[in-house]
């Protein structure tokens, strides 16, 4: 018989579980840039794949798909207006239940897993294509040494597919490591990539227009059944039943539908719109619609027009045989103008292609990681996968799984973009189909508020018929069904993958259900979970001026020990906080307690409580879901009116960088806000102290002497005998502000840069380090908002 006695309800430790994610919000331009990094990347390979499948009229189908993407985007806008996180999993689960949600998320995973390999291999094709072309051009000028000739048995030439595989593997492994370390997604970086891409698109369209005017063009055959020329591969299972070309003639419209199905991958990436929605700034719906318009127009112009131009300008003899996998490079080579200029532009195309396609490889890893984290939060994937990396705290097991699948895919494809593209379309079309079907069902099932509806809607006998939604669904379903028959590789790979993932999800869910029942009971015995939408001081029962201690890894709690050692908890409360990082693809609001507080948090807090008990001190516990840990810490410290944040030293960045990140997050909090101290504790007990927020700067001795010397001179002036030191500083700063805003800006910046270069400690705009690194902090009576029980000497 067990001697274990559960504690009485009064003994249980209270944990406040915040259920709203603490986010930093972005403008619609940045949101559009993030989505376009995924969506616009397909312009680099979609038309080549489509033309191989259906023939020379492929660009019209790409244009048609891009037009249709305006309607698909409308479905996503409606879903996002209902659920802040309106992605496939949430929507399908709400409408059709858990089983179909698991199927749809499996299709989405297939989409994400394939995004990496197709983008990596395609980027490789562009780079190798340029290298081979450069070798050939150099050889015609006699610039290639004879030794190189004998080595390659002629003009140096790299095996395109093999080298692309090596390149794709290198990029994937690079991003695997970056994600394992936990790189921050940057909307700034996405915006820069899109700005560079826009420069390329403008040059491409402008130069193409000039070329059309100067050199004429090849007409693009209209998308009629007679103009369709299917390859054997593009008929999939149907090639066994019908002779190669008779199908389109037998069923005129079916041919169009098959061709449309071979072009749908051009609109892959729409799902990203749902994922960035929750980060959009207020007014959310308006900004979502603006972002959606920008995305749709941009991708239509880039993907649609570049597809048409490639057939119009690149001769038939080389378009498919030479440039099928790097069509935009081919377009650059057939512009009107000198060869050198065309080669330079091709180089630019390759650079842009590399940036956007390798960015898509990263997006694929982040997206898959986010989706699997999301389903894991719902108990559909074993918690084992979500266990944080020992050093970096990332969900490395999920990242490893995703990257392993991507590497296997890259190797299996042998660098064939066509095969990858065909398979990719399976995930794209089925995740769209599930999403639109669910939205259709929700029109009848969901009675909550909708921000917006896909038009037109007709009311007959009191029932609203969603004609627009139904239409989009019909197109997607018809295309998805036809693709099942015509894309044999995609069907076999996609169905197998989805079934395997579905089985993993189902078994995990079953196992987790049993485990959660036990964990829930244990949790009830030891912890009292108080659910709250936001973080509030009252709910935690703590006083203002408390000390906030963020924890992540239960093996490294030296900073909690330090905080408890140096805090008298009778005077000042200690709040231990865990930020549950809720990634891309996770829910944003209304998370259930189990989603936020799970196995790992239970172990983490059990350890924290035992540390506090060893000091005989009381701590308050808090779990906060967050997109970005810095933002969560800054917002929580702000909401709880904390006077100090005590953090452990990071394995990824210096303490100054930690302070800078927290300072940046603090800057994003709206006014009014209060300053606080950040104390970063090293394992050896040393502490680096920073003030977060504006504060009296630490002045160098020579500056104090200079100020005093000026004061002595100025007070000798008639009528200025009573001037104080601070009056001189006020005047100096006012003049500095004026000069910086007007004519002397460049000189000032230049001089400050010189100072920065001379100073090994980088200039920190937001968080200034107090130049004392002390192991024994003393109390302070500071009055500048930086004081606190844990404040060091100033």
């Amino acid at each position, binding site marked *: 018989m067990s001697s274990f006695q559960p504690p009485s309800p009064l003994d249980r430790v209270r944990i406040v579980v915040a259920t709203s994610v603490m986010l930093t919000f972005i403008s619609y331009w940045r949101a559009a840039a993030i989505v376009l990094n995924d969506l616009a990347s397909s312009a680099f390979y979609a038309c080549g794949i489509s033309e191989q499948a259906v023939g020379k009229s492929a660009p019209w189908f790409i244009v048609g798909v891009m*037009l*249709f993407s*305006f*309607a698909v985007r*409308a479905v996503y806008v409606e879903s996002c207006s209902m659920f802040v996180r309106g992605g496939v999993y949430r929507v399908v689960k709400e409408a059709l239940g858990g089983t179909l949600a698991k199927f749809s998320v499996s299709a989405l995973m297939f989409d994400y897993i394939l995004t990496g390999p197709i983008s990596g291999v395609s980027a490789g094709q562009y780079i190798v294509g340029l290298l081979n072309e450069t070798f050939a051009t150099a050889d015609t000028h006699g610039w290639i040494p004879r030794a190189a000739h004998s080595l390659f048995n002629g003009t140096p030439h790299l095996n395109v597919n093999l080298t692309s595989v090596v390149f794709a593997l290198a990029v994937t492994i690079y991003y695997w490591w970056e994600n394992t370390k936990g790189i921050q997604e940057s909307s700034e970086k996405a915006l820069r990539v899109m700005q560079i891409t826009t420069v390329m698109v403008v040059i491409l369209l402008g130069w193409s227009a000039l070329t059309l005017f100067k050199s004429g063009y090849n007409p693009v055959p209209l998308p009629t059944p007679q103009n369709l020329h299917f390859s054997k591969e593009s008929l999939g299972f149907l090639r066994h*039943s019908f002779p190669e070309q008779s199908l389109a003639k037998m*069923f005129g*419209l*079916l041919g*169009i*539908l098959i061709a*449309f199905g071979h072009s749908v991958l051009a609109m892959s990436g729409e799902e990203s719109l749902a994922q960035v929605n929750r980060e959009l700034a207020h007014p959310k719906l*308006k900004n979502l*619609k*603006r972002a959606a*318009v920008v995305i749709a127009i941009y991708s239509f112009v880039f993907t649609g027009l570049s597809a048409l131009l490639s057939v119009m300008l690149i001769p038939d003899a080389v378009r498919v045989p030479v440039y099928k996998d790097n069509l935009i490079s081919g377009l650059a080579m057939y512009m009107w103008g000198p060869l050198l200029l065309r080669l330079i532009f091709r180089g630019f195309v390759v650079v842009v292609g590399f940036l956007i396609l390798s960015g898509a490889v990263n997006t694929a890893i982040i997206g898959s990681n986010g989706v699997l984290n999301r389903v894991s939060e719902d108990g559909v994937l074993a918690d084992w996968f979500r266990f944080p990396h020992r050093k970096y705290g990332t969900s490395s097991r999920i990242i490893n799984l995703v990257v392993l699948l991507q590497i296997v895919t890259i190797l299996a494809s042998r660098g064939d973009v066509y095969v990858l593209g065909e398979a990719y379309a399976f995930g794209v079309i089925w995740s769209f189909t599930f999403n639109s079907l669910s939205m259709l069902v929700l029109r009848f099932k969901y009675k909550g*508020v*909708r*921000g*917006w*509806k*896909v*038009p*037109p809607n007709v009311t007959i006998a009191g029932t609203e018929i969603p*004609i*627009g939604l*139904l*239409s*989009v*669904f*019909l*197109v*997607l*379903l*018809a*295309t998805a*069904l*036809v693709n099942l028959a015509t894309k044999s590789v995609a069907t076999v790979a996609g169905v197998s993958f989805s079934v395997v993932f579905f089985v993993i999800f189902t078994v995990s869910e079953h196992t987790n259900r049993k485990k959660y029942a036990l964990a829930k009971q244990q949790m009830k015995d030891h912890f009292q979970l108080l659910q709250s939408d936001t973080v509030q001081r009252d709910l935690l029962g703590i006083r203002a001026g408390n000390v906030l201690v963020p924890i992540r890894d239960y093996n490294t709690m030296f900073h909690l020990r330090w905080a408890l050692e140096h805090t008298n908890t009778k005077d000042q409360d200690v709040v231990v906080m865990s930020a549950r990082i809720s990634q891309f693809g996770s829910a944003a609001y209304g998370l259930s307690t189990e989603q936020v507080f799970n196995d790992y948090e239970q172990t983490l807090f059990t350890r924290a409580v035992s540390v506090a008990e060893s000091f005989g001190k009381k701590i308050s516990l808090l779990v906060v879901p967050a997109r970005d840990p810095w933002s969560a810490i800054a917002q929580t410290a702000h909401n709880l009116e904390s006077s100090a944040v005590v953090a452990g030293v990071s394995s990824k960045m210096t303490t100054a960088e930690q302070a800078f990140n927290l300072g940046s997050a603090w800057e994003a909090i709206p006014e009014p806000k209060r300053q606080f101290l950040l104390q970063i504790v090293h394992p050896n007990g040393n502490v680096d102290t920073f003030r977060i927020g504006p504060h009296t700067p630490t002045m160098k001795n020579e500056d104090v002497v200079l100020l005093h010397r000026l004061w002595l001179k100025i007070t000798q002036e008639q009528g200025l005998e009573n001037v104080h030191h601070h009056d001189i500083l006020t005047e100096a700063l006012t003049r500095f502000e004026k000069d910086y805003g007007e004519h002397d800006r460049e000189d000032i910046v230049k001089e400050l840069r010189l100072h920065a270069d001379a100073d090994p400690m980088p200039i920190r705009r937001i968080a200034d380090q107090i130049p004392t690194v002390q192991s024994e902090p003393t109390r302070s009576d500071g009055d500048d908002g930086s004081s606190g029980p844990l404040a060091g000497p100033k």
Partner: protein
Amino acid sequence: MGQIIVIVLVRILEGMFVVGIIGSFVVIVLTGIEDLKMLLGREEENRS
């Protein structure tokens, strides 16, 4: 018999596709007008 079933299924798919494309075209036109109004700052609320 098998051929007839295939033909019927194909016709159904074609019908779905044609009806869907026409409806989607209407969606594109209507949302396009709405987007234009939004970009010109004359947006109407469409809430339920």
